[in-house]
């Protein structure tokens, strides 16, 4: 999970009003270099909660982001590099995101945050997903058999 995702996530527990930012508990942080894209960084800058990014990157062991930032800094290569590194290259691989209001822990396992709520935490939560197995959805429903040939011939 990149810190851009942390910057986009809030606690989704029913009744929570101050669910952002989620507190990071970092057990394992990895760095994965990616190509810098100044245009993307400029587009995203206004959408990022800067303080949340600074605090998160510090918990992840990266302390080079300035406390304050403004759009004029996007013209500086050095700033862009730091912003890029914090936003996209630091990954929370193992740990948790903690609701700031309730202390409820959302685990992050193998880089994937689990925001699923328990029955008593949700207002109205039911599924949307893709389970199944190589058959059209309608067929899965009607026959519930696996026909790999059908699936492959589709390709």
């Amino acid at each position, binding site marked *: 999970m990149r810190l851009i995702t942390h910057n*986009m*996530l809030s606690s989704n527990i029913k009744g929570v009003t101050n669910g952002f930012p989620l507190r990071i508990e970092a057990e394992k942080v990895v760095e994965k270099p990616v190509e810098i894209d100044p245009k993307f960084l400029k587009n995203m800058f206004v959408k990022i909660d800067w303080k949340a990014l600074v605090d998160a990157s510090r918990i992840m062991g990266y302390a080079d982001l300035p406390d304050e930032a403004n759009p004029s800094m996007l013209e500086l290569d050095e700033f862009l590099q730091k912003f890029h590194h914090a936003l996209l290259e630091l990954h929370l691989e193992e740990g948790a995101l903690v609701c700031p209001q309730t202390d409820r822990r959302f685990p992050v396992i193998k880089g994937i945050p689990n925001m699923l709520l328990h029955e008593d935490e949700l207002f109205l939560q039911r599924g949307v997903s893709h*389970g*199944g197995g190589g058959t059209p*959805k309608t067929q899965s429903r009607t026959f519930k058999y696996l026909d790999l040939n059908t699936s492959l011939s589709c390709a």
Partner: protein
Amino acid sequence: MSSTTAQIRLVSSHPEVYEPCDDSFALVDALLADRAHLLEQHPTLCMEVGCGSGYVITSLALILGKEAPGVHYIATDINPHAIRVTRETLEAHGVHAELINTNIASGLDSRLKGLIDVMVVNPPYVPTREDEVGAEGIASSWAGGENGRSVIDRILPIADNLLSEKGWLYLVTLTANNPSEICLEMRKKGYGARIVVQRSTEEESLHIIKFWRDFDSVDAKEMLTASKSASWSL
């Protein structure tokens, strides 16, 4: 990897995860057909709700590819197996999306409000009993409740909340879902709609519908006034 869409042999799988089939292919064909428009739209954030095997989000990343630099991809699924399979599929194709195990966009709805430029959804659209909706694993990919609309009807307002002003939604629907009624509902929210791909198989008749914010229909009069002062560019 120079393939335009994800390759089936590189798509990972799991017994509890929906494998790419006619509906997935129709959705990807719609994205391919609309590729030039997608590139012109210059999306920054693209999102798939219910990513399943990862075939669609991987294909979207490949379709936009290097010609659309500066695009960030996000995918969600309620099924943890699907999220894992999606990660493997993305990695096998050398592309990246941020993955979140959540229901539709729960946890993202407040901070991502108005930021998604392209949203793709292949929802559980099969008509089932209402109590089958939201079952774990395999069933969550297809169980759509009455007329297959239960989950679709929950997704639409969420999509409306997340889409940016220039944002587009690509939605897979079945004839049984009453696509024209869905379009009418979206029209009330101010969206134009177009069928990008229509496909009938032995089992199902699929429509891939594209929705966009249709400003000239929302407040036609207001816009008419506005156009005189040359402020069409919303």
